[in-house]
């Protein structure tokens, strides 16, 4: 699959709330993500990060505007844009191997090639010994590895990740971040990664998009060297980025307490 840029052009997404009020989850988003970039979307929950990802995935159609991936207009989900969800979506009724090869099966890839590809990706995520396990026999972190292997194995140029490591413990999250960075460096896929964790964004991203009330509030280039360990993240330019994001989230010291708690009044 050839890789191009992802272009969002004036994307609006309005939902009708139960109360009858119309809520704008996305309110005119314009952004171009060049091929091979690792982009993190940060912002408070309920401010459109996940909706943006679902729109790019083709799961939620925009009410206005358009999304193009590699020059082609997005009209629905397709295998060039697989997604890892925050929730555990690894199919519990399939063994690890069958899970990882699901996307290949959907593309009609032949048996021999499928087996080869799956073996490779299981090795990449360190699950070779668990190929025949049921998901229930794995820990939450291992199941996330299965999901990551599954989307990478499809060969898709664009990978969408919606807070994939959000529910994991600290140590597991760090090791999965490192694994993802390794895989990304190897394959140079375009990755859209939603997170509410500024630290995580700083470790992963080439570029951080800050979302607030359905709009892109800021677009920050992160040119820190990798791996971004504690020392790098303590550099003045890294701290400046953290502060800049915190200011958008209303977390800077000048902000009133209510805003610091994540309560939005807008």
């Amino acid at each position: 699959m050839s890789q191009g840029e992802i272009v969002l052009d004036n994307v609006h997404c309005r939902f009708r709330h139960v109360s009858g009020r119309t809520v704008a989850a996305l309110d005119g988003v314009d952004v171009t993500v060049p091929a091979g970039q690792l982009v993190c979307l940060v912002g408070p929950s309920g401010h459109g990060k996940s909706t943006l990802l679902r729109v790019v995935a083709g799961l939620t159609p925009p009410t206005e505007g358009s999304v193009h991936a590699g020059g082609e207009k997005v009209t629905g989900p397709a295998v060039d844009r697989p997604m890892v969800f925050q929730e555990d979506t690894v199919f519990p009724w399939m063994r690890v191997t069958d899970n990882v090869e699901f996307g290949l099966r959907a593309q009609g890839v032949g048996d021999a090639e499928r087996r080869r590809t799956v073996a490779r990706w299981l090795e990449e995520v360190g699950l070779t010994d668990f190929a025949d396990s049921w998901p229930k026999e794995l820990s939450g972190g291992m199941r996330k590895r299965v999901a990551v292997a599954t989307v990478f194995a499809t060969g898709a140029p664009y990978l969408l990740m919606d807070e994939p490591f959000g529910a994991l413990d600290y140590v597991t999250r760090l090791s999965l971040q490192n694994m993802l960075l390794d895989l990304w460096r190897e394959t140079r896929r375009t990755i859209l990664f939603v997170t509410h964790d500024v630290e995580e964004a700083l470790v992963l991203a080439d570029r951080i998009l800050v979302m607030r009330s359905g709009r892109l509030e800021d677009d920050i280039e992160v040119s820190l060297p990798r791996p971004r360990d504690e020392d790098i993240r303590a550099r003045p330019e890294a701290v400046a980025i953290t502060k800049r994001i915190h200011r958008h989230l209303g977390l800077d010291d000048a902000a009133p307490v209510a805003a610091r708690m994540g309560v939005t009044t807008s």
Partner: protein
Amino acid sequence: MRGGEIAVARVARNPAGPARAALDAARRLRRRWRPLARRVVLGGLGVVVVLGLWTLAGMAVGRYLPPPWTVVANLLDHFFASDYLRGLGLPAGGYIDHVWATTGKVVVGMVVGTLVGGTLALAAAHIRWIGEAFAPLVAALGTLPILALAPFFLIWFGISAVSQIVLVSLYTVTIIYIYSLRAVRNIDARYGDYARTLGAPRRLVFHRVSLPAALPEMFGGIRIAFAASWGLTAIAELLGAQSGAGRAILSLSAVYDVTGMMAVILLLGIVALIMDGLIVMAKAWLTRWSAVGAGSSGGSS
């Protein structure tokens, strides 16, 4: 795997290790067997009490409520072949042949009903107009006393096995449809989303996601329909059939042979219990991936 290493290390460090390990193993074994032993003892107790009451009641009632052992003896006497049953105008063969005939009708009706009901439900869940078209029909069929239809089938299909099979199929279709539809609708939508972002066409989502995800709940419907089907078939046979448990009971009741009637019921109950056990086993195997049940311990990463 790591747990094993730790256990070995602990045994090696502790001087009284092997003895203690053996003791632990014994304790573990006892803990595992205790619930089973308890179930067997208490379950057996229940059976003994009922048999005792049955015997006492039999003493009071007399000829028309024979004691259990008489029923069992009668069952064994006429199990495979019986001139007595032939003399009553029944086809050649013993109780087992009649119960077997009923079993055949139940199984065929169940298989047909499950396939049709399950397929319709999956279709209804995926294609909206199908679900809407079936909704009132299923609601009507679900509240209708299905046995009231038996006389119609007798007129349309005669006293052949078809009458009873159609009855069981119709009932099973309704039950399985209701259960399966609910099962498919209860599936977490995210599994479908995930499958679609992986490029799965509708057909693949249907049989690799919807069907396996719905299977555990569908089995609930299958067991309920199966349990009711024995009674439906037997009663339909009472109304008119060439063979079957109901037919045998009808002929035996004409000569007031209560012992024989009870023998047929006993055998039918045993066969139904075995079939139910087979379904439970099939479910356990087909849903062995499910986190509920044995072997669901989590690993470590």
